[in-house]
């Protein structure tokens, strides 16, 4: 398929029968469908509707796997939505290169995104060839170990302060019939847990070398071997989890059936929903209590190129609404994520969120794997680690060999 002709066809077919109804109805697709997520989206919609346009919601549950093919088909099929969620990073690169996405540089310059948006890497992920193509809306970080205070009490050991103490406490937990570490069956959970272990145990530099520079030698080296040892521990500790979804795993921690879980800050919403209090009922350890850094992954909105002038204008309005201070606060409090700008007040944030904000303010940030590796390498990694965590007969050494192959072939 020729990209140029595709753009032309796109232009030809985009004469929408529905455009006549209301020129500033904007259809927005996303995969935020859980309770807390929907509440957060409602904040975005409310703010956008207040500008005189209308947010038409197109939610598709099941995260990227289900929603993304639909979004990509719509865009390439010449019937695009007005805006769509993607994890920022490399997911939408090609759509941009194909000329299917709208350039937001004008809005960004006008509103000075370069200075407002912190950390700068967020905007870098939206930038291709010097032009800005997406509006980041939040920062989600993966580097958290969530611990159930109740579970450790039952087992008669102190709540660990770091990963090593946690590993040491595992036998006591097991004896009490508690699964030490909950890891759900979805492949991305195993892969994510490994990445978190890598930053915590091998440190920021090694992490950057492996995923950023795709350095095979480092990936095959002793640092990563230590990470695989830790992953082996994690595998042993996760035996008996028997749940699929991440939030079911979180629920095991909430109810004290599991000692802890390595999961992103979105898990926080689950604790809040269950009425649990940070520090009292559960403990959060950023960077597994070893290396206090957080990664700046997150969500962003992309805007497909539309013919309709009114809609294009409304797209700009939507983009600027998304990053405006009031929306950032309202949205992120509901979502449990951190705002993309440093100049807003998050007084209502809870303890764990505050810990995250502190680390962010110190500048202890790294780019998350989504921003460094292609979706393809990520998927291969997921296959590897979901197999590793489910199959005790796979040795850490074998797994590391396969990991090196993935890094070697990564682009």
């Amino acid at each position: 398929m020729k990209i140029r002709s595709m753009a032309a066809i796109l232009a030809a077919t985009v004469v929408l029968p529905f455009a006549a109804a209301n020129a500033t109805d904007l259809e927005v697709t996303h995969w935020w469908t859980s309770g807390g997520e929907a509440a957060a989206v409602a904040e975005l919609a409310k703010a956008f509707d207040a500008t005189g346009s209308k947010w038409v919601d197109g939610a598709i549950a099941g995260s990227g796997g289900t929603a993304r093919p639909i979004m990509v088909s719509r865009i390439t099929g010449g019937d695009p939505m007005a805006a769509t969620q993607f994890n920022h990073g490399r997911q939408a690169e090609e759509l941009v290169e194909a000329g299917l996405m709208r350039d937001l540089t004008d809005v960004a310059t006008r509103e000075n995104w370069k200075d407002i948006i912190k950390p700068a890497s967020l905007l870098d992920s939206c930038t291709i060839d010097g032009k800005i193509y997406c509006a980041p809306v939040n920062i989600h970080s993966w580097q958290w170990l969530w611990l159930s205070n109740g579970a450790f009490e039952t087992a008669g050991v102190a709540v660990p302060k770091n990963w090593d103490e946690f590993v040491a406490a595992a036998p006591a937990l097991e004896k009490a019939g508690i699964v030490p570490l909950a890891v759900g069956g979805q492949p991305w959970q195993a892969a994510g847990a490994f990445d978190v272990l890598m930053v915590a145990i091998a440190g920021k530099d090694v992490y950057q070398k492996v995923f950023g520079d795709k350095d095979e030698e480092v990936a095959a080296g002793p640092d990563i071997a230590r990470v695989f040892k830790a992953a082996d521990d994690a595998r042993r500790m996760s035996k008996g989890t028997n749940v699929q979804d991440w939030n079911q795993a979180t629920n095991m921690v909430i109810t004290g059936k599991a000692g802890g879980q390595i999961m992103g800050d979105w898990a926080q919403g689950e604790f809040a929903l269950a009425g649990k209090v940070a520090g009292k009922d559960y403990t959060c350890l950023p960077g597994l209590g070893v290396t206090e850094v957080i990664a700046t992954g997150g969500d962003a909105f992309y805007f497909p190129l539309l013919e309709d002038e009114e809609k294009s204008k409304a797209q700009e309005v939507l983009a600027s609404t998304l990053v405006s201070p009031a929306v950032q606060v309202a949205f992120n409090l509901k979502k449990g994520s951190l705002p993309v700008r440093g100049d807003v007040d998050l007084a209502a944030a809870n303890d764990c969120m505050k810990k995250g904000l502190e680390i962010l303010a110190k500048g202890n940030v790294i780019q998350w794997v989504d921003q460094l590796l292609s979706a393809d390498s990520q998927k291969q990694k997921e296959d590897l680690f979901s197999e590793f965590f489910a199959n005790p007969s796979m040795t850490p050494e074998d797994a590391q060999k396969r990991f090196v192959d993935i890094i070697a072939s990564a682009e």
Partner: protein
Amino acid sequence: MSDTVALNPGPALAAATRAGVEPRGAKPRRALSGRNIMLYGTLAVAALYYLLPLYVMVVTSMKGMPEIRLGNIFSPPLEVTFEPWVKAWAQACTGLNCDGLSRGFWNSVRITVPSTLISILVASVNGYALANWKFKGADLFFTILIVGAFIPYQVMIYPIVIVLREMGIYGTLTGLVIVHTIFGMPILTLLFRNYFSSLPEELFKAARIDGAGFWQIYFRIMLPMSLPIFVVAMILQITGIWNDFLFGVVFTRPEYYPMTVQLNNIVNSVQGVKEYNVNMAATLLTGAVPLIVYFVSGRLFVRGIAAGAVKG
């Protein structure tokens, strides 16, 4: 049983006489013969396996979450509640729209009715042409079609997106109807072809001698005679199209999203604990239309296939 005989005397009679077909020296028929115990015993055990999941779905959908957490999925609800049903139908959220499955119901109807009708019409004409008016090369197309039945749908998404885009009907209901027609075609054409070839050839020849042409014979003779196979095709298509998620969501826009999209959203949304009761109620509600179709017309289904399946 009695109504089967009334409606369909041929096979039932056949079965009746055949029941006497046994190795020589068989014992006289008694109601409680060993053979009958075996026969009904086996059927009952099989029936249990088939019914169990439905039973589980129904009882689970009427329990509250606390009761579900207690364990036993087979125990009947202590306290019957219809809350999950109400929630699934009218309250469950899909993003910002909290009106449950009800939102997609009419869309599913709007998609299923034209898709079913058109796909059947096209496939029946195909089958008729293949059975009665075979032209050179027809078999080649048919073979490709049958092989096409084995292609995973997911693979075809991109090529079809391109074709629909070139035709300018991507994202429209028309496009979706065409997609359903295409993917229903292999199996349906096979069924119709078998059926039409099983009809007595004399009928067709007589009509030809009277000077009737392709369409005349189709509409005047073939169509009226093929009600049974049309019922079979309808059942297959209604089920398939109603249950479809992938095409409904990839080839249309949100205002046409079928009920299965909301089902997916309800089932896959992660909100604390999995609400199994709401999930089960939602699956039962979504499956209600095809289930009713089966319960009402299951008998016609076997008759329809029986009418044309054997001679091929």
